[in-house]
């Protein structure tokens, strides 16, 4: 089975600082991958290189059988890579519903040749997505009226709106209550059951352990572990990386 | 085209001197744009303001222009700090620096230029000093003192700033604030205060740069606009935030401009800087020694 995402020896530096150092990673279709690592280990940089917000300097990124280096971020989104931002970035001059209309119009609509969705269909799809994250009642409100937690849910909903094959959730659970974390996890599991591959980047170990089929660990720009969650957490190098902080 | 060696070497020498001066002019923007990420396109207007202040005290009281600028340093510093405070409160705090911040500085540029026109008129003004007129001759090369003295003063200013940035605590805090504002806060330093000091410093350099400018060439209010391109071209070409890069880029620009003016005519000179800028932005936005 060919991997859905294949990151091959990618590196990225900022001036003198090496953010990513020869990272190799494979994600199989339908897999649930957890990605953990201390702050500053390069997780977000890796996400940015996969999604096209940044360009990797060496190596290559393969998605769905094609090399996607050099493709702009919006083109990668069209091909099925979606991400939520660690710090929510809503479109602040638009209502929640309109925030979701953006990926619907520009990704889904565009993918289908721009013919299939009428305005009514778009609206109902927005409502559906908002219901999935529990924000349906606030459809007409503006992002500035949301709590931090609600903004994260909006971030996730916006990534889902692009109907991706691969969803990268970048620390969507920080600051959430236990039941809210359960809700988000359940949501991600449901998406996964529908066939969406999910990469979960998190610090909340309980969530990562219960969700992931496979766990990868990034420390100082290098991947130091990659395997079954229960094996990885007992790996001495991983333990050292975390306790030694 | 008959390129005489004599002409060529003098053009290059003039370019070197000019480049040294450009470095001082750019030092301020290197701080505000390179380190603080503030697009202060009104900087040249402050320089011209400095020129006119030097002119005023020189013509009316016979004071040496460079001396005037040094006395004016605290006033310009205070002006810079005040401008930053307004900029921070109105735009940076609200995250609206892109559109409104730019418009704000553009408005300042405009208001300064038009005010100068109203007070001094559009005639060219120049200063008088002992070193304006004579030249030193070294072999084939003519070094007019009116360019040599500002160049040396400029390099001194540039060196002073570089020392400040690298050797003093406040200076290093300025470098730090450009790289990681949060870390600075965690160290107990107020980043807003640091930025205010830095911006005040950047405008203070304009006082000196202005005095040097009016020694080199006669000044009228719209001269500032030519310098917008030069200053940002040097900053970008040198790599934002890199003072040594700015110096190299400044000298490079000075030489190319001087050669252009000598062999193609002075009316083409403004296009050189802006052409540099456009090319750099298009092909190598990180500059020569980019961060």
């Amino acid at each position, binding site marked *: 089975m060919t991997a859905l995402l294949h990151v091959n020896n990618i590196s990225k530096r900022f001036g003198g600082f090496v953010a990513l150092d020869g990272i190799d990673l494979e994600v199989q279709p339908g897999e649930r991958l957890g990605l953990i690592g201390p702050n500053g280990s390069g997780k977000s940089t890796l996400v940015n290189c996969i999604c096209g*917000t940044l360009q990797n300097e060496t190596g290559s990124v393969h998605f769905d059988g094609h090399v996607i280096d050099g493709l*702009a*971020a*919006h083109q990668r*989104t*069209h091909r099925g890579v*979606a*991400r939520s*931002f660690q710090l929510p*970035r*809503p*479109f*602040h*001059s*638009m209502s929640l519903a*309109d925030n979701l*209309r*953006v*990926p619907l*119009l*520009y*990704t889904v609509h*565009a993918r289908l040749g721009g013919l299939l969705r009428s305005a009514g269909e778009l609206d109902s799809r927005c409502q559906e997505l908002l219901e999935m994250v529990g924000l349906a009642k606030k459809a007409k409100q503006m992002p500035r009226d949301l709590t931090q937690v609600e903004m994260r849910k909006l971030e996730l909903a*916006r990534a889902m*709106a692009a109907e991706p094959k691969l969803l990268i959730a970048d620390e969507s659970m920080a600051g959430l209550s236990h039941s809210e974390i359960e809700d988000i996890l359940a949501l991600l599991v449901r998406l996964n059951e529908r066939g969406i591959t999910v990469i979960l980047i998190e610090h909340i170990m309980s969530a990562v352990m219960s969700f992931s089929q496979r766990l990868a660990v990034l420390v100082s720009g290098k991947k130091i572990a990659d395997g079954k969650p229960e094996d990885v957490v007992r790996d001495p190098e991983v333990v050292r990386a975390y306790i030694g902080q | 085209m008959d390129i005489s060696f004599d002409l060529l070497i003098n053009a290059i020498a003039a370019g070197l001197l000019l480049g040294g001066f450009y470095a001082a002019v750019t030092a301020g923007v290197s701080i505000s744009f390179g380190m603080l990420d503030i*697009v202060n*396109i009104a900087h040249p207007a402050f320089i011209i303001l400095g020129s006119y202040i030097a002119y005023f005290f020189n013509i009316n009281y016979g004071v040496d222009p460079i001396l005037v600028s040094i006395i004016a340093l605290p006033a310009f510093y205070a002006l810079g700090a005040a401008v930053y405070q*307004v900029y921070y409160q*109105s735009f940076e705090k609200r995250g609206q620096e*892109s*559109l*409104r911040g*730019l*418009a*704000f500085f*553009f*408005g*300042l540029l*405009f*208001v300064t230029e*038009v*005010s100068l*026109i*109203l007070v001094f008129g559009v005639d060219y003004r120049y200063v008088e000093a002992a070193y304006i007129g004579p030249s030193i001759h070294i072999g084939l090369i003519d070094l007019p003192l009116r360019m040599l003295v500002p160049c040396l003063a400029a390099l001194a200013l540039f060196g002073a700033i570089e020392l400040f940035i690298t050797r003093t605590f406040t200076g290093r805090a300025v470098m730090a604030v450009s790289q990681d504002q949060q870390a600075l806060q965690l160290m107990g330093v107020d980043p807003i205060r640091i930025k205010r000091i830095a911006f005040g410093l950047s405008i203070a350099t304009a006082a000196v740069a202005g005095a040097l400018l009016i020694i080199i060439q006669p000044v009228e209010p*719209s001269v500032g606009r030519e310098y*917008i*391109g030069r200053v*940002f071209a040097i900053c970008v070409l040198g790599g934002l935030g890199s003072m040594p890069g700015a110096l190299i880029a400044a000298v490079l620009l000075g030489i190319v401009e001087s050669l252009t003016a000598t062999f193609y005519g002075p*009316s*083409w000179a*403004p*296009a050189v*800087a*802006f*052409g540099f*800028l*456009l090319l750099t*932005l*298009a092909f190598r*936005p990180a500059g020569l020694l980019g961060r």
Partner: protein
Amino acid sequence: MNTAKFSLITIAVGAVVMAFAHWVHVDYLYFASYTILQFIVLATAWNILGGYCGYVNFGSAAFFAMGAYSSVFMHKLFPLPVPVLILLGAVVSGIAGFGMGYLTLRLRGSFFAIATLALAVVLQTLVVNWDYVGGSRGAYIIRPEEIEFAGITVNYIEYLFALMLGLAVLSLITARTIERSQLGFGFATIRDDELAAEASGVPTLRVKLIATTLSGAFMGMAGAPFPYYIGYLQPSSAFGLEYAVNSIAMPMIGGTTSWVGPLVGAILLGSAQQYATVTISSAVNLLIVGLMLVAFVIIAPNGLIGLVQERLRAWRKP
């Protein structure tokens, strides 16, 4: 109100204005109003890129002057009727807008703004050194007294006024249509958060290029009849300071979020300036514009329209 209805109403208003002007028939008023109409076009054009997309253009004068100088160039080569020159101005400045955008839009917004300044100066230097269009000495275009259309003779000033009125109407209709279209929606996402827009699938570079091309084209159209209006074109007047500052001040003071802002800003500021230039001096008048720009940008970030909207909102919530 849909686009077709709005277009009809705007055209009707334009026709009323034209009829009124024809009835009054005072040359000075034609001149003064022409300037205001020109500013409506420039402010609206600027706002398409600046207000809708969030990319500041400091070089409006460059695109305006390119339209003017392409008219001068054609006048010397092969005389063409002014409406054709307007189209030519649109093409020339549109291509320039596209080219500039292509070179610089992949960078941050602040770099784009600086590059537009650079463009204005480079172009001015080129024109000053280009003798065919008069160089620094300037170019004369003798304006005919009258022009004939199918047997009807029209005063030339009135003709130019009518053309500029038509351009103003066109620019307003275009701006409003964009606002309510998917393109306008795309513009807004770029203005709000370009990174998130790109991640959501918006082809940001392509959308921004459309904005710069349209904006440039309209500015070029405003510039094309200018040499005929003014009779003697010098680089310093075509690339003049008042175009740069007004193209920014009028939308920012009026309000950048909708087509109404530039219209309000152009009419208010334009009329005030016409009055000030005549009664005080043109330098003081520009000073006032600059001060107002700084004041509004600090105090009323959403312009006059924003202030009105806030009042309405406060009035509606008891």
